């Protein structure tokens, strides 16, 4: 299993760089994961990441993209509640890239 070095700690990740142990996640690690994806975290991106984590804690799976866009629309304004805006925040895709930064497993399937 691969590892990444963050703040002197060695963190286990899978082949695609997703955390193996969800408990390893913290904000510093999220910033580092974002940097490795060439994304720099700002308040709007944190809204997405925090919502993904909250949803995952409740349901043990990332939310449907439509649920995420609606939630972001509620929090940041209707004009931002769409997939296009989420791709602006996370060019690698709201499901895969944002989940990675949020420390969630990679979504699998025809996605």
């Amino acid at each position, binding site marked *: 299993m691969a590892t990444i070095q963050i703040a002197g700690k060695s963190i286990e990740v899978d082949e695609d760089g997703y955390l193996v142990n969800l408990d390893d996640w913290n904000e510093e690690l999220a910033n580092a994961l974002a940097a490795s994806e060439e994304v720099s975290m700002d308040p709007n991106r944190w809204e997405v990441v925090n919502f993904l984590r909250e949803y995952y804690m409740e*349901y043990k799976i990332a939310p*449907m993209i*439509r649920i995420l*866009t*609606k939630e972001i629309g509620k929090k940041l304004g209707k004009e931002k509640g769409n997939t296009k805006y989420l791709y602006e925040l996370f060019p690698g895709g709201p499901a895969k890239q944002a989940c990675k930064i949020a420390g969630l497993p990679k979504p*699998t*399937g*025809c*996605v």
Partner: protein
Amino acid sequence: MAKADFEIPDIKNGVSVPAVKPGAMAHVKYHPASEAHLTKLGFPAKRVDNWKEVALAKMNELMGKYKSLSLFLDVCVKCGACADKCHYYLGTGDPNNMPVARQELMRKVYRKNFTLGGKLFGGLARAEDLTEEVLREWMAYFHQCSQCRRCSVFCPFGIDTAEISMAAREIMDSIGIGQKYTLEIIAKVHDTGNNLGIPKDALIGTLEFLEEDVKETTGVDVKFPLDQKGAEVMLIVPSADFFSSPHVDSLVGYAKVFHAAGISYTFSSHASEFANFGMFIGSYDNTKKIATRIADAGRDLGVKRIVVGECGHAYRVAYSFWNTLAGPFDYLDKNHSVPTHVCEFTDELLRRNALKLDKSANDEFTVTYHDSCNVARASRMGTEPGGQFEIPRNILKAVCNKYVEMDPEANREKTFCCGGGGGLLSDELLEVRVKGAAPKVSALKEVMDNQGVNTMAMICAICKAQFTKVLPYYDIPMEAVAGVHQLVSNAIQLGDK
């Protein structure tokens, strides 16, 4: 345009047969399956010591089981009709992506070990043993085949490379070498009922969300029922419909069609997946186990009919193999096809004038249709030959004012694969996917440039995910991708039922 660390094929002037670039795609590697997933699916946890003997014994077993496989290994005359027909060859120029050469990777081992000429004359008879190097070629190039069967349309003997690549993957799994993407997904279906691993509570939450969301936008109570015993229809969809965009827009479309028709239906939490990746790895046992989940769910719910959503390869499994894998479906109403494709279901309602439509709702779209390979070449829809081509088109023409055909040489029975089918829809295979998409994207671009097309409709979850990802590499927005029932959803007028 999306960035890539590899060269994007130039499709400005269409896609022509490329110069041969030996080894151009030999570097491609998929992520290996974990020991846990290999074991769960009934394969050795890691590569067995006597792997060569086990592989050859498996090959022998498969040739005994599947007459087609041994026939395909015997009858090729190297005429070359298939050589320029594979989208992966056209997109990469790697000669091992010519179907004949891909088949030859297995055929040379077959000759060496199972034919007199090969045993006696070796290389002179184009025979070669299953060496470490040959195994590496198998791993690389049998995962650059999307099992789309386009080559078989042009082969004078009908040799089907898909079947050879499925057998090769089954042989590799049997010695403990597997691909993470497909095996992890199959393991999730066995555990949770779907590819994504959506637990029941999350599925309930998702369906409730959709009910509220549709109510907000239409003012109508469209239901998304789960585990409703005694419903007329069980609707089985790819689980990507519960997660991704634009997939979910077709899901909403199916629900609206059921609402408008006044026919009761239900999803199942036990079988919350239509996809069946068991076929991609040629595993009869795993394909059967996934299909059986669906057959059991329908029986338990007491439904009269099974309707299936927009998913290409799963429709092949359902249409061609369900009956022998998990049949007889004797609990279903004999007056309907088993399974009924959701397009067939909607088309039947359209023919009876049972749906109220406002085509102008789609006036911002000029639509073309992409034939998904497994629907086009491995199944039929409805009662007429070619129904799998005509029925989705009939629906599109009923719900859109502006419909345009792509070049038939790149569509219908000769359709080019999206480039992500057959278990290749994995991020580490992005180079294969982007390059393999070139022929289809070229056909799309032609109608975009010349006829104002801005939307490509399709009925496959893999195609939707693949095009959403790869179109931006060709400077085409991902919003060009749509499901057929997404467009139905836009146009359908819901009255009170």
